[in-house]
């Protein structure tokens, strides 16, 4: 700008420089925050779980443990609590097996395009229930779905439902048959169990308050 401006407020040069500085500063801050967040959301290890060290995203082998979602008075919202060992599909999975299962489960969830009906961590479509804490949903714990599918455990009931969803209609709006195989179904259940152990800062709020109120206890057993 060769022309001299009467006031800084009408100077293009001033606004151009300000735009560059603000954009640059915001970008640098975002990159710095990203480094911090990456550290906090990288997956924990098998040893962390064994020692009871809390990670926001636990290792895949969290599928070998009981998971609950309870009110934390200090944080003021519900948090995942990882409890005692609990067999998953009747066995304990090694760290490698659990990681492979989670990998297969996440691939299947993407390959079947689950996110264009359901929400995961609240993101996706709103045509079907949120799956963030699906593993802890009372529907799988109160005997409804084990009863309908005739399975012993909730993981078996979930896998059976995923393989033949339209055979077990729960509402007029049904899940279609997506050709999910037995292996894929087990892997998806592992993915859902792992996701339920992610610390989502209290989302969904008061998860399944209704079931708690009706049954007179906490929802996840």
């Amino acid at each position, binding site marked *: 700008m060769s022309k001299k401006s009467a006031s800084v407020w009408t100077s293009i040069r001033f606004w151009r420089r300000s735009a560059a500085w603000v*954009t640059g500063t915001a970008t640098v801050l975002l990159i710095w925050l990203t480094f911090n967040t990456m550290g906090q959301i990288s997956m924990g290890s098998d040893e962390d779980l064994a020692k009871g060290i809390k990670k926001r995203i636990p290792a895949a082998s969290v599928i070998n443990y009981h998971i609950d979602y309870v009110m934390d008075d200090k944080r003021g919202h519900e948090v995942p609590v990882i409890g005692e060992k609990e067999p998953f599909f009747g066995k304990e999975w090694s760290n490698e097996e659990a990681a492979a299962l989670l990998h297969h489960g996440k*691939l299947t969830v*993407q390959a079947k395009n689950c996110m*264009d009906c359901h929400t995961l961590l*609240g993101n996706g479509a709103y045509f079907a229930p949120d799956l963030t804490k699906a593993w802890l949903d009372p529907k799988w714990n109160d005997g409804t779905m084990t009863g309908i599918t005739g399975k012993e455990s909730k993981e078996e009931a979930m896998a059976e439902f995923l393989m033949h969803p339209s055979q077990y209609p729960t509402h007029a709006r049904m899940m279609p048959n997506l050709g999910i*195989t037995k292996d894929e179904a087990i892997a998806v259940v592992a993915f859902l169990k792992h996701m339920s152990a992610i610390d989502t800062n209290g989302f969904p709020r008061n998860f399944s308050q209704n*079931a708690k109120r009706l049954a007179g206890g906490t929802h996840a057993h």
Partner: protein
Amino acid sequence: MLTSAHLKYESQKLAMNYFRVALVLFGAQLLMGLIAAIQFLYPGFLFELFDFNVARMVHINALVVWMLYAMIGSVYYMIPDETGEEAVAIGLGKLAFWVLTAAVTVVVLVYIFIQVGPGNESTIWFINEGREYIEAPRWADIGIVVVVLIFYWNVFATFMKGKKTGIMTVMVADLFALAGLYLCGMFFTDNISMDQYWWWWVIHLWVEATWEVFVGSLAAYGLIKILGAKREIVEMWLWIEVLMLFGSGILGLGHHYFWIGTPEYWWEIGALFSALEPVPLVAMFVHVLYDWGKEQGHCEAGQTGHAVNNTPAMGWIALNAFGNFLGAGIWGFFHTLPQVNIYTHGTQFTAAHGHLAFFGAYATILIGMMYLGVQGSYGIKKMTMTFKSKMAIVLVTFGVLGMTVALTIAGYEQVLVERADLGGGWDAYFVAQELPWMLQAQAWRLVMGLVTFIGFVYLAWDLLTIGAVESAEEKSEAVAAAAA
């Protein structure tokens, strides 16, 4: 839209090709939206044949892709005007257009006929990636990157060769960021939180940062073109908008990091910066109306009649000023604070905001650019609205507003019943979905979707015919004037 006879530059002719495909994809987007809307009311509709996830995937992908087509078209259209040069690698640009269009066709056909695949890498490579908005399989991802690089080379090299206006400077910098961000969405990870973290770098940083700046540049270009607005004033506004859009939009990313496993400090960062996001939208609103009023005032004072030489384009750009502020600003702010968002996240509120924001902020201005393209193609000096232009603008706007209000009511009911009272489990979800408030709202959404579609038919019809009709009128008037 069917001719490019009066365009001097190949770059602008190529732009018209992009606009034509964008219009086809826009129609496809609306048809898929109608199918999805019907499925909310009649769950058996096309069940296990063409399920909601497929309709919805094509609906949102067609949206993103038609907007990218119209954006690329807009840039190719403005390059010669702004730089005074033909795009440097125009042959390559044309080739890229046909490659992209062939690839998009294949991807859509695979979405529609193959739909989903087995749970392994082959599906991610060849069918779909199952990641909302960026479902394109990996082969297409790589192809898109190549095509975008060719496009960007054309923009950048032409900019370096020709005049360096403020508008082009902003455009070149913005497109660099826009293209680069796509790379953040091109990898697979087992960690869903990590996946979502980077996914938002594409989705939010596109839509709420780079696309908004892009729209600012287009508005600036459009105002100079349509009104003859003074470049100095327009460009000063543009820099102010860039400052505020990037200043709020980049860290506004935080409002997507409340509940995906990311640390709690994002609550404060997200709340603060996303609360600032409506501010630049007010500035864009003021900017457009200010220039319009100023130029019109000059014309009336000089008794030279109307300042606007393309009323359909100006109509859509003025609508953009309102729509962006209302849809992105107000409807976004509704549920952006974490205290509210913990109940509204992932409900019909989001859908309401999404519909009005994409329409108000992007669809409007891109349609305005298409009218500018038609004007240039037919060499029309003063283009005015036809009956069809008016029907298009009224019906599409009324339809989208209607859908937004209906979805807002649905979201309100869902938040109260499913989230606040029942706590968001499986049963809570279906209780809220089956209540009359939800069903009535979904019915109204479908009705308003049909209104939007009828408006689109008028729009397409108008874009295809207005040029020939008005250029013929201008010619006969000129003949009559010469004879007299």
